[in-house]
């Protein structure tokens, strides 16, 4: 079973790079890397918005869309169960735990936190681990999920190098 990659890890994907090579090997082994739908939202939004200002970014958007649309990655949907978990997590912890460390003004920090909540909810409800460079925030989410659903297997949070 492959871990779901969060946005911090997906953002290191590059054509011909080591991470893309790893992704191709996983797909070849019949265990495609998983990416959550909220990560796809975040990446596509960021690349599209940047491409509007900097047209040279446009090929990167096409590359990423093709990757996500292919069989090389599995996109985990923000489905009914994930939506319920995400809503409860947001209610329990409306603001990010590491506000001082996050960049941007408060609304931007909150937007990032909501995405992280959705990513964690998707990974957990789809039975995946989460591979991230943002251990601290996802460990908070792991603990909140464990608090909500104490009789279930908790979300495993692993560093990106272990994915």
């Amino acid at each position, binding site marked *: 079973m492959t871990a779901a990659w969060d*946005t*911090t890890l*997906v*953002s*290191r994907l*590059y*054509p011909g*790079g080591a991470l893309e090579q790893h992704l191709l090997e996983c797909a070849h082994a019949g265990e495609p890397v998983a990416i959550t739908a909220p990560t796809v939202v*975040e*990446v596509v*939004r*960021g*690349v599209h*918005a*940047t*491409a509007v200002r*900097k*047209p*040279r*970014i*446009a*090929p*990167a*958007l*096409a*590359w*990423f*869309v*093709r990757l996500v*649309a292919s069989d090389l990655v599995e996109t985990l949907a923000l489905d009914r169960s994930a939506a319920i978990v995400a809503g409860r997590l947001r209610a329990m912890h409306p603001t990010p735990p590491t506000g001082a460390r*996050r*960049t*941007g*003004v408060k*609304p*931007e920090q909150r*937007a*990032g936190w909501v*995405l992280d909540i959705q990513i964690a909810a998707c990974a957990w409800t789809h039975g995946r681990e989460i591979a991230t460079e943002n251990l601290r925030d996802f460990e908070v989410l792991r603990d909140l999920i464990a608090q909500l659903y104490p009789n279930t297997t908790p979300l495993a949070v692993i560093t990106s190098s272990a994915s």
Partner: protein
Amino acid sequence: MPYSVMDAADRLADELGTTANDAIMRLAEEGASARERREQIAALASERRAAVEQISLDVAGGFPSADDFREAMLAGRRDP
């Protein structure tokens, strides 16, 4: 005729005060309509998903650097 269909037809006939044959016809029409609706939804979904995933990859102007690409991917956490 499967028992489950006959049973449903009998219940519908009782409800509408009609014959079992008429109820079977109504159930068939309802089933055909539901099937047609499912087919329409599947066709629309297929058409829309194909449009979303079809994107032209024109790299004539070059591909952005890894740093620029990463910055763009994470832009949502910085931009208002």
